């Protein structure tokens, strides 16, 4: 490493030269109290990690998870109809592949990683049948990707319609069509459960709350006092109380609010509560976006003769929504976590299923395993989504103007 060409003008900076010892010194042992801190932190890590790891790999009874995996994923959804959930998933991965192929211009490593996740999952000890289905996820997204790549221009429009169509179609596949009999029998919503219910509630919640939230944000910003007061009243009431009280209220009072002929399933009641809750927070996020748009944009648009509605639709909203996309992603993650509260209303979301499984005498004393598994599922989903959205932000240059 030693160079004797002392006359050369460009020298490597002395401290930046990389060596393990140098790095250790700089980052861990630079001063005596830093060294002390390092030792303490190392001891803490060891003290926490050792019992945890011995438990995870030794004492823990993970059979409670593997034996009940279907329950955790889809609840009491009839097993002979399980293929429909898979069908909905395949359709989803196909649409994802389609939009990836038509929107993402150049090859992205993250795409490959996404594609490989099911492949690795298939290596886990599932049944052969399930492994094939998991691999199917990759296959379908690849098919979508290849189709889209053949004609990106046409398929970028197709994929938007595909997304719009996906949600009603997917719901229909899961709910069923043909009464109690036949190929597509209706599956009562009381049987929906597990992770499927958690995801459905949060996805539908955020979708329905979007138009309501945007209207509330516009209402709050309105120059017309009555409209703005009513919007503020709604938003602040919802934001001022815990979600569980809203869910509780909807569960008990929604049947009272509507004519007595109408009966509403408990999942719908929960969904209404989640939607209202999410709409109030959505309104505040969108309002933040609206306020970030300079007044000059309104004025320029009016000066060009655009009406108030046109100004909102073509000038203000596109900019405001673009500005709040990252916040909306984190709101969705928050909502995903918050849907666990429906368990208190005795719905069988993944947490509710966990509680039910623990009620089985065979699995007494496995609550750590069950809840740790559930926590891990949520962690992977929400960390994965926030990581992906950060990557997407930088890739699309969002947040910069």
């Amino acid at each position: 490493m030693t160079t004797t060409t002392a006359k050369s003008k460009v020298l490597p900076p002395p401290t930046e030269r990389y060596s393990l010892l140098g790095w250790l010194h700089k980052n861990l042992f630079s001063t005596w109290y830093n060294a002390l801190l390092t030792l303490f932190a190392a001891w803490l890590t060891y003290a926490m990690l050792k019992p945890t790891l011995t438990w995870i790999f030794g004492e823990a009874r993970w059979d409670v998870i593997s034996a009940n995996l279907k329950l955790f994923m889809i609840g009491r959804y009839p097993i002979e109809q399980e293929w429909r959930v898979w069908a909905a998933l395949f359709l989803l991965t196909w649409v994802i592949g389609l939009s990836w192929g038509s929107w993402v211009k150049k090859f992205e490593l993250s795409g490959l990683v996404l594609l490989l996740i099911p492949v690795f999952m298939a290596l886990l000890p599932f049944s052969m049948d399930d492994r094939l289905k998991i691999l199917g996820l990759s296959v379908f997204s690849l098919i979508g990707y290849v189709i889209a790549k053949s004609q990106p221009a046409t398929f970028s429009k197709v994929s938007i319609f595909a997304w719009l169509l996906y949600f009603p179609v997917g719901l229909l596949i899961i709910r069923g069509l043909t009464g109690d009999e036949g190929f597509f029998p209706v599956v009562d919503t009381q049987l929906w459960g597990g992770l499927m219910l958690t995801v459905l509630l949060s996805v539908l919640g955020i979708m329905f709350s979007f138009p309501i939230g945007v209207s509330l944000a516009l209402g709050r910003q309105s120059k017309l006092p009555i409209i703005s007061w009513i919007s503020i009243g709604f938003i602040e009431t919802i934001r001022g109380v815990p979600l569980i009280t809203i869910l509780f209220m909807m569960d008990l009072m929604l049947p009272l609010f509507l004519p007595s002929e109408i009966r509403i399933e408990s999942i719908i009641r929960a969904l209404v509560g989640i939607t209202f809750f999410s709409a109030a927070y959505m309104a505040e996020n969108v309002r933040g976006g609206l306020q970030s748009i300079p007044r000059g944009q309104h004025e320029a648009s009016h000066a060009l003769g655009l009406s108030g509605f046109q100004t909102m639709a073509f000038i203000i909203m596109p900019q405001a929504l673009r500005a709040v996309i990252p916040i909306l992603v984190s709101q969705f993650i928050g909502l995903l976590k918050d849907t666990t509260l429906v368990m208190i209303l005795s719905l069988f979301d993944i947490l509710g299923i966990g509680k039910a499984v623990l009620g089985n005498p065979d699995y007494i004393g496995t609550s750590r395993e069950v809840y740790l598994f559930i926590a891990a599922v949520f962690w992977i989903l929400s960390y994965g989504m926030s990581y992906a959205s950060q990557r997407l932000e930088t890739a699309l240059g969002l947040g910069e103007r």
Partner: protein
Amino acid sequence: MSENNNNDPIIVCQDVHKWYGQFHALRGIDMEVRKGEVIVIFGPSGSGKSTFIRTINRLEEHQSGQIVVDSIELTHDVRNIEAIRKETGMVFQQFNLFPHLTVLQNITLAPLQVHKWKKEKAEEIAMQLLERVGIPEQAEKFPGQLSGGQQQRVAIARALAMQLKIMLFDEPTSALDPEMIKEVLDVMTELAESGMTMLVVTHEMGFARSVADRMFFFDEGQIVESGSPEDIYNNPQEDRTKLFLSQILQH
């Protein structure tokens, strides 16, 4: 109703007043602008000159007095407000281009949405206008990728695309670096020569002197003095005008 000949006033303002809360921002403005005239409005900041030209296309509401633009009176009638906005264009100090649209989309948006033109026609006219302001090669870029001078020229093209009769300029060069002011003023001069009616709030005295037909000096919400550029420069009548001119011409 009648054909405007060149001596008819296209803008008539009579005793226009405006208050912001207790603050009396416009204190009885009277002004007549004939078709094809170029009017330069100048004055110290806070004198109401920007507020005044913004009342003409109803970005600000006047509380008393009368404003008639091209025989349409500006009242609370939403149809009149729309009609006047279709006939007037405005160029702002801060450009106010729409950052999420390309240059071409910025220009074609209003023709497509307000005039309901066909896309081909709107784009063709937009390209002609970009030629006219000298930046046809920037059509597909976003505003954020342009220099200030280029952005302001796009803003002028965007206003012109509405095929209007009156252009309002609210300090169009104040936010520009010195080397970019000229390129914008050149476009404005060319526009004036083509016969456009223009109301320009500006402190660019060279521009005013060579292009303006009449100049108005505003102070404290009133027109202190008006006249041809020669009168104003060489023979100002009011002390306030003299003082202000001496201050800005020192530079």
